[in-house]
């Protein structure tokens, strides 16, 4: 039994890391701009497709294609923010309409361009195995956990130590005061979107080789990441990290107890309970006033 739990723990940590990458992006955008980006799932997905494109057609090296994929997603993020989301900051219904529009365009654009079939991206890190006791894991699983851990630390240092990172935190805490001290809000918004989309791209590029790259690959992780940032507390970065990891691990461990088909239901049931009992989440600040 212990080995089964250990195996699910590793799987949970790996999937949890993917959710963390996605959740970090969404929580940054929500924290700084009060925009809920439902299209984050498809951005995650084209991260995988770009990684595949760069890997097979541009550079042979997998790490480089992950980086190129992140850079192209960062560019896409800046364009999306500038053209669409900046004007919709106060308008939640239109944020949703715009997100749905993006989902339709990107998901079906990918099917049109790459075809509906899933892509296989056999990298060395996926084929080689690691043996722990009698369990064997692919190296990629540990690559994901390590890369995400590094990303979280880098993001933390960026937010805490650098001028731009502090400016982002300042803008999310007091937008008017940020303008008064000379922070250009538009610049902060586009940088936030660039980072968020790059993280999503990294997620797609990391998960792609392990499973398959297909047009709907981002939908599940997006819903889990959305649950993570709500359970963690809207706008709280630590909340998103712990929420993401937590959901990944709970989800995997739950497969030991209940049929795997109900894996998603467990997560959504927790989400609904959390929303009813503690809508401001684990780390969120309790927002007073009429709901």
């Amino acid at each position, binding site marked *: 039994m212990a080995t089964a739990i250990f195996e699910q723990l590793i799987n949970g940590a790996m999937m949890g890391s993917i959710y963390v990458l996605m959740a970090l992006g969404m929580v940054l955008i929500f924290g700084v701009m009060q925009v809920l980006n439902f299209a984050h799932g498809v951005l995650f997905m084209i991260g995988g497709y770009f990684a595949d494109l760069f890997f097979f057609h541009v550079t042979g090296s997998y790490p480089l294609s992950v980086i190129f994929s992140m850079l192209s997603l960062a560019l896409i993020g800046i364009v999306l923010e500038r053209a669409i989301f900046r004007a919709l900051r106060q308008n939640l219904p239109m944020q949703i309409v715009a997100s749905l529009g993006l989902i339709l365009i990107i998901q079906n654009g990918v099917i049109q361009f790459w075809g509906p079939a899933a892509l296989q991206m056999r990298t060395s890190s996926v084929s080689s195995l690691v043996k722990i006791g009698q369990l064997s894991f692919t190296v990629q699983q540990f690559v994901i956990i390590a890369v995400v851990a590094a990303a979280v630390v880098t993001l933390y240092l960026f937010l805490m130590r650098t*001028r731009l990172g502090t*400016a982002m*935190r*300042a803008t999310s*805490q007091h937008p008017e*005061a940020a303008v*008064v*001290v*000379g*922070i250009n809000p538009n610049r902060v918004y586009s940088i936030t979107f660039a980072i968020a989309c790059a993280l999503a791209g990294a997620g797609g590029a990391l998960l792609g080789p392990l499973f398959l790259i297909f047009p709907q690959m981002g939908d599940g992780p997006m819903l889990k990441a959305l649950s993570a940032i709500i359970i963690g507390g809207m706008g709280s970065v630590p909340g998103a990290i712990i929420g993401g990891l937590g959901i990944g691990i709970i989800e995997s461990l739950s497969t030991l107890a209940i049929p795997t088909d109900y894996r998603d239901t467990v997560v959504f049931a927790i989400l609904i309970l959390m929303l009813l009992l503690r809508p401001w989440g684990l780390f969120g600040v309790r927002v007073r006033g009429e709901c």
Partner: protein
Amino acid sequence: MLTVRGLKGGYGGKLIVDGVDLDVAAGEIVTVIGQNGAGKSTILKSIFNMAPVRQGEVALDGKDIFSVSPYQMLTVGLAYIPQHHSVFPKLTIAENLRMGGYLLNDAALLQKRVTKVEGMFPILAQRRNEYAASLSGGEQRMLEVARTLIMDPKVIMLDEPSIGLAPKMVDLVFSTARRLAEAGKAILMVEQNVKAALLASDRGYVLELGQVRITDDAKALIADERVSRLYMGIRN
């Protein structure tokens, strides 16, 4: 130093400030008083280009800065401290000060300015790693002033600095303003606390329904009957 001509401003379809002329010279403290709703805060917001609807001319040292975007006003030497607490609550005091110098990309100069400002406000130096939210109302006001001084602006606009402060803190705020004026800065204050503010100022403007009704030396205004009558809505 700061000259304002024919300023109009408002928001939500409401025109609140309706043609105001103002002057603030270097080393002078000027206070704008008037019942609330007269448009005091809107004047500062309109000058700083943060009011959606605005017209008129604003010049600093003769240079037109009317259409400078609000986050660049500090580069032309104009600083503004909003009415309600404008510290970054979940940033430490040191980080708040660093954000004051966001526009400086010279780290050494920033550090020099921070230590100079911490010298002026020792309380901030002692608690520099605590979150700004842990400071009292008066201490937060000091942090806002200190943060503004990092960029060494020529003109500082304060929106009701004494609101919600204990009397001891109010005197500290006004004496700090006097210290800055003596250092050559131009101070434009909007205040509710009429007597205390006028005592600390050189000149005053009395605002009613978005227009300047009386302008005079501060001492004269304190004794002026018309001011209290105006406050009570008695047509003089």
